[in-house]
């Protein structure tokens, strides 16, 4: 088991190192940063000075180790626009994104799993068909279209503008974007929990439980559902890891002041330091979430420990 944990840790570390290296290569080969920073008509000496200041005159592998060293110390560079460090810009925006993402995950989990359970228990009839139709609908609906529809309904039906919360993040204000963001994952949770529960229901141990005279409700809640929930852990881990990345479009539609909005704005203004840090942060959360899922399996599914 120690071997399993160590190999997972090593793989996570290598993934992160590869990501950092790729980011370095892309930034380094995209153009001459010194020429980009210097004024347009600057003579060659000025550009060289910039290059020296940035360490661009050194061999590539020295630049690479310097870059790794900086990242290891937590120095991810400064935004060209505001001069603030990219980390602090990110941290400013993080609470709004976590609030939105957390709410949408909560909606997706509760609504999705309930729908999936209802569908599995009514397999083949109109309830099941309805839930499956909903999950196909949720998958195909682009979140920018759904978000705009929500804003339109709010404006025409309730005379309130649901977008543009600005700095004031409220309990009610988070609902429209959270619904939008959670729609697609609600569909996939419904679909996934339905098929997982159907698979479990047909297993021999549930037949054995029925033979022992255990009631239907008890069989469902204490025997079928915990077993059916095991594969869902992977899906939840993925959603947690994708929390920041998933909200990019939704934040843009609702003018939600989160990391996604910062990312799009930084891409538009070519604020490389900020973009780079957000990319690394997203990769980091994904890798950590995957690690947590792997370790969680050790705890909740004893069968893995035996292997």
């Amino acid at each position: 088991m120690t071997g399993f944990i160590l190999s997972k840790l090593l793989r996570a570390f290598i993934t992160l190192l590869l990501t950092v290296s790729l980011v370095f290569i892309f930034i380094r080969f995209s153009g001459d940063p010194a020429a980009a920073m210097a004024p347009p008509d600057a003579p060659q000496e000025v550009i060289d000075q910039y290059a020296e200041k940035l360490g661009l005159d050194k061999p590539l592998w020295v630049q690479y180790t310097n870059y790794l060293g900086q990242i290891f110390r937590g120095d991810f560079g400064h935004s060209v626009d505001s001069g603030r460090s990219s980390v602090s810009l990110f941290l400013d925006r993080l609470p709004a994104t976590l609030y939105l993402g957390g709410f949408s995950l909560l909606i997706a989990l509760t609504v999705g799993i309930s729908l999936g359970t209802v569908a599995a228990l009514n397999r083949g009839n109109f309830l099941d068909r309805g839930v499956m139709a909903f999950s196909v609908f949720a998958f195909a609906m682009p979140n920018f279209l759904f978000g705009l529809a929500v804003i339109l309904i709010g404006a025409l039906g309730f005379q309130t503008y649901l977008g543009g919360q600005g700095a004031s993040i409220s309990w009610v204000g988070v609902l429209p974007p959270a619904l939008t963001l959670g729609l697609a994952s609600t569909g996939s949770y419904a679909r996934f929990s339905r098929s997982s529960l159907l698979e479990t229901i047909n297993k021999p141990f549930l037949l054995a439980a029925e033979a022992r005279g255990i009631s239907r409700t008890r069989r469902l809640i204490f025997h079928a559902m915990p077993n059916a929930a095991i594969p869902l852990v992977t899906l939840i881990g993925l959603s947690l890891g994708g929390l920041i990345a998933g909200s990019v479009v939704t934040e843009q539609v609702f003018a939600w002041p989160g990391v996604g909005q910062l990312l799009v704005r930084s891409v538009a203004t070519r604020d490389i330091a900020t973009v780079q840090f957000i990319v690394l942060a997203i990769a980091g959360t994904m890798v950590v979430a995957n690690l947590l899922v792997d370790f969680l399996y050790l705890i909740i599914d004893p069968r893995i420990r035996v292997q």
Partner: protein
Amino acid sequence: MSDRYKSFERLSTPLVVKLALGFVVVFVLFALFGQLLSPHEFRATSLFDRLKPPIGFGGTWTYPLGTDGRGRDLLVRLALGAQITLIVAIVGTLVGAVLGSLLGIIAAAKRGPLEALIIGAVDVQASLPIIVVALFVLAVFNSSFTLFLLLVGLNGWEVYARLMRGAVLSAKEHGYVMAIRALGASSFRIYFRHIFPNVLNIVLVQFTINLPLTVLLETALSFLGLGVQPPLTSLGQIMSEGRDRLLTAWWLTLFPGLIIFFLALSISIIGDWVRDRLDPTLRSEK
């Protein structure tokens, strides 16, 4: 008995699938020939005809679907946008399928450090959602249509690579591969002439999952203003231009939005149906 009857029933095409196929055919025809429906040019502006509503909402037959804020005909712009979205979706999905499958086959065939490198790349891609990769690359490089096509194409390559590697690794152990190898066939012949046709199903199934996602990625990036750049246009880009006028000129967002939605919906319905027939293991589940 009932199972056999069920699988017989599957042979007839369900109505939803027929509708979905119908929509896709109409969409493709619209993308190819839609520009002929309108006498206007997609860039032609007309300051006297700004924000004209569609027919039925006070519009005239000059502009059947209305005009945008610069007086450009929405019908012809939607036709061009549909064309671009179609090209990006098909080329993009193909790029990912070919690249991913090739890397997967190479990893399984060569083993050793090359395989480790490919697995590493798959891990990196799996930890970075494609929209983030696309945003990063668009921040670093100048946006161009070719770059955008490649980026959209990267969508899902890691899934193809992982699936193909697994399938080829298990196919290598089959008797038929050993037989061909014993007959002295070259590696290239073994992998592409004999193993590949046997694992092709997996690529096709993944293709049907990937195609609607590619449509959604293209439209999302264009909606963010980072995809297809003016004067060219795509369905997502038309939506993003109309977004500021959501309440006054709803047709600018509603029409492209509905086309995107029904396109993604139709492709996934058809994909589900194709998947059921290609993958016999899924049949027992429903």
